């Protein structure tokens, strides 16, 4: 019983922590692409800012992933 609950918890941890950052990253990429299309000269600056903001959002998913790995190792 508890094993299956842990498995479920691990799946939910990674699933829910992916949803939010995925939406955020999609919106960020959309905005960056629009601004690059409008101003191709600023592409370099936009790209580096894009990577930083993507990395900060990615961190949230990684925390979920770590929790999922921790839970899986308890089974």
């Amino acid at each position, binding site marked *: 019983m508890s094993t299956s609950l842990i498995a479920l918890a691990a799946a939910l941890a990674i699933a829910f922590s992916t949803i939010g950052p995925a939406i955020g990253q999609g919106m960020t990429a959309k905005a960056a692409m629009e601004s690059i299309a409008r101003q191709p000269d600023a592409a370099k600056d936009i790209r*580096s800012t894009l990577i*930083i903001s993507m990395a900060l959002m*990615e961190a949230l998913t990684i925390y979920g*992933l770590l929790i999922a*790995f*921790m839970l899986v190792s308890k089974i």
Partner: protein
Amino acid sequence: MGEASEVVIKLFGFLDVTGEVIAMWIILGIIAILSLIVKSILKEKPGKFQNIIEWFVEYLDNFFTDLLGKKKARQNFTFLASLFIFIIFGNYSGLIPGVGMTDYVKAPTASLSVTIALGVIVFVFLQVSGLKHGVKHYFKRFVSPIFIMLPLLVLDEFIKPASLALRLYGNIFGEEMVTHQLYEILPIGAPVVMMALSLLFCALQAMVFTMLVSIYLDEATEEE
């Protein structure tokens, strides 16, 4: 997390040498030998190999100059560039077939201990360069907009390196795990897909790590 690495050698009876440490020794050896070779063939008129190395150093120089400005980038170039080179070698070492399958050689950045050590180094570096920049300025930064922010800003100083360490560890460890799972499903062919993606992600993670360090450094040594 929690998973302790196998101790493969007991050096002098009390120093625990794990697979990660051996991998780091190999990486250090490769970097040192590469530097010695480059140093010995330096010429006024660069050859092919020197051109590649010069391109790489120039790329790093431009990368930090864009983030920090000329003066600060030159001052801290050695630390930031060594960090970048070490992390990128550590990340790519996990892609060599066989690494991670044995206890003797493991990708160093896929271990939480190594990335936390890097985080601690970055923490000390940031504090020292902040203090060097100006003691008054350093303490003023903690109460800069309003006094109530003090606990949050002090906490922030500790969260920065912790999040750096966790991000690097999580990304590289996650990639290794996914590659391993794909290997279990279909040993020939399937892991290649993830490894091709890892080629991109490994370089990106090293870049993100150093980029964030330089941004934090820029914050810590801000001109008024």
